[in-house]
């Protein structure tokens, strides 16, 4: 009996120490606040006429899709001990390419597919440039992707001639606004892509190799991990995912706004990754955690609007939620709350590592 109790306690401890757990708690808390404000918040309606589910939860899922894309890309990059600051700018490039191409075409589905392929190809290429600078040239990831972050928005401005470009194509808009069996296409696509990435890295040794590079690049090389090609791949994938995010963001309004599309979203992506329990020091990652982080950011954005928090107080509100969450995630702060237990060496070590 005591054995079982001990195991249960250990299990509970593991859950509480899992940082993504606190992300889930935060999402639940935000949803609870919304329910207090309006008891019907969680209700999901079904419109028989259009065959669509509708409700606040569905809106959150839709808003989360672009963030999930860049968060998963960021997660892989961070695992190798790098960082990708250019995701927001690659988003706007993909959006600018799509809108500029679609503007000159008729609205057929074939053109939409062609545009999608070109936009994602360019996004992947920009990611590959990041990867090249990091892996072959050996620049710091922070610097190489910072360069791309500045250059990307410039490229987008050149592509559209500095204007916000609008286009019409129903198939392209369907990617962001359409529904399949009542569920938004954009969320289904996002989840499918996340699942694919998860299978690739966690059902093969790929994930372990990425973590090995993040832990100790030299040791991983001695162990036979091909650092260069893996880094090149990881940054390209991050670029590709950012391109998909850019397509989602621009397709929802069929407009690219060169100074606002994807602006500062790299920070959201980093935040999502950190909330999900991936250390920025590299060497470990959790895609599930990044997904929870992305959902939390979308929930937070929607909550601010739903509660009608004044525009000027919005950044402060968001900051408070994030700070509280980070404090709860910190082992050291939690043990301070537990007055009775002394600070054990074990937990101290973990707090430092986190």
């Amino acid at each position, binding site marked *: 009996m005591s054995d079982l109790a001990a195991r249960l306690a250990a299990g509970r401890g593991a859950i509480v120490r899992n940082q993504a757990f606190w992300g889930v708690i935060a999402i639940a808390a935000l949803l609870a606040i919304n329910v207090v404000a*309006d008891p019907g918040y969680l209700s999901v309606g079904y*419109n028989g006429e*259009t065959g669509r589910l509708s*409700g*606040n939860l569905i*809106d959150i899922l839709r*808003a989360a899709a672009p963030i999930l894309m860049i968060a998963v890309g960021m997660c892989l990059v961070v695992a190798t001990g790098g960082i990708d600051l250019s995701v927001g700018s690659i988003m706007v490039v993909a959006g600018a390419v799509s809108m500029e191409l679609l503007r000159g075409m008729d609205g057929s589905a074939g053109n939409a597919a062609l545009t999608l392929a070109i936009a994602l190809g360019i996004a992947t290429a920009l990611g590959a440039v990041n990867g090249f600078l990091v892996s072959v*040239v*050996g*620049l710091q990831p922070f610097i190489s992707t910072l360069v791309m972050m500045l250059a990307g*928005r410039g490229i987008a*401005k050149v592509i559209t001639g*500095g*204007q*916000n470009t*609008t286009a019409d194509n129903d198939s392209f808009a369907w990617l962001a*606004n359409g529904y399949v069996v009542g569920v938004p296409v954009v969320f289904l696509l996002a989840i499918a892509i996340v699942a694919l990435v998860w299978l690739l890295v966690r059902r093969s040794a790929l994930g372990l190799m990425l973590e090995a590079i993040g832990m100790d690049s030299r040791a991983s090389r001695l162990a036979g991990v091909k650092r260069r090609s893996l880094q090149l791949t990881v940054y390209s994938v991050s670029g590709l995912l950012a391109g998909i995010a850019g397509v989602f*963001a*621009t397709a*929802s*309004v069929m*407009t690219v*706004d*060169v*100074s*606002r*599309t994807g*602006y500062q979203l790299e920070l959201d992506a980093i935040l999502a990754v950190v909330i999900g329990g991936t250390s920025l020091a590299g060497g470990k990652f959790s895609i599930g955690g990044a997904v929870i982080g992305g959902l939390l950011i979308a929930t937070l*954005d*929607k909550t601010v*609007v*739903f509660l*009608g928090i*004044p*525009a*000027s107080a*919005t950044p402060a509100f968001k900051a408070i939620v994030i700070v509280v969450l980070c404090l709860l995630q910190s082992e050291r702060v939690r043990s301070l709350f537990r007055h009775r237990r002394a600070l054990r060496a074990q937990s101290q070590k973990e707090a430092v590592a986190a």
Partner: protein
Amino acid sequence: MRSTARVARAFAVAGALTLGLAACGGGDDDTSTSGGDGGGDDVVTVGFVAVGPEGGWRQANEANVQDTFTEEAGFELKYAPATNLDQRSQIDAFTSFVDEGVDVILLSATEGAGWEDSLRRAQEAEIPVILVDRGIEPDDTDLYVTRIAPDNYEVSTSVAEWAVSAFPDGANYFVLEGPAGVSVVNERNKGWDDTVGSAANLVKIGAQTANWSTEEAKSVFETVLRANNNDIQIVFAQNDEMGLGAAIAVEEAGLTPGVDVQIATIDGTKPALEALSEGRLSFVAEYNPLFGETLLEVVDKVLNGEEVEPYIIVPSETFDSPEAATAALPSRKY
């Protein structure tokens, strides 16, 4: 060894970059001296601290200024758009114009506050500063020569008057604002509030920023509609882009813009007038961007040492029906 080689390579790259930058700086200096020399008689150098890509309105305005101050007209225009609407980059551009000694500076500030020091430096260098469109806060008229702009207060008052007359039986309204703290936003809010505030049957549901962006406005307004069970009749969008985003959100909620929710916007760009002619928007107040000619006259006067008014208002129109929009569309320049 490997790491030293890497450091050496890094230095080489950094060195190349620095050289490149120095070369750019050198180029600027050359043109400025030649421009400064000729400033007195033929070529007038004009430094334009601009906002850069922000939306259709800004595009039209800045293109109009660039088309006015041409070489043929005897000007050398130095166009310096902000980097991602960042005030820091504007202050840097402003300072370098002062250091170069241009003849006159045109300033469209992305943010109203924090310009005192820069403007004083220009004053010490005896370079006249003309504010284009955006004002500064606090509005100290000693620091600049004049401000030329359509009047935000007047324009948003015209939107508010439309709302009051279109909804005599009362309605709920929501405001989609630009970024908090920008002077345009404050002025447009004030014009609207002063008029709508006196109409007790117009109820404010809330206000939220959508950062001038269509995408954000759509996301914000879909949630606002849910939070209020679609019980909103008027949207006051402080620019066209946000109004168009709100229209998409209204359509996706299964309502009809123009019928269930009436959307009023400010700016009067082509896409907005097209939407008005289709009935998706209900009221568009123009905020006239094409005042390059007026600006040119004022610059000439200032350089000749004549007195000018501290605030010159550019007249603007309003469009309140699909017919008015259809009539205006063919001649629309932006």
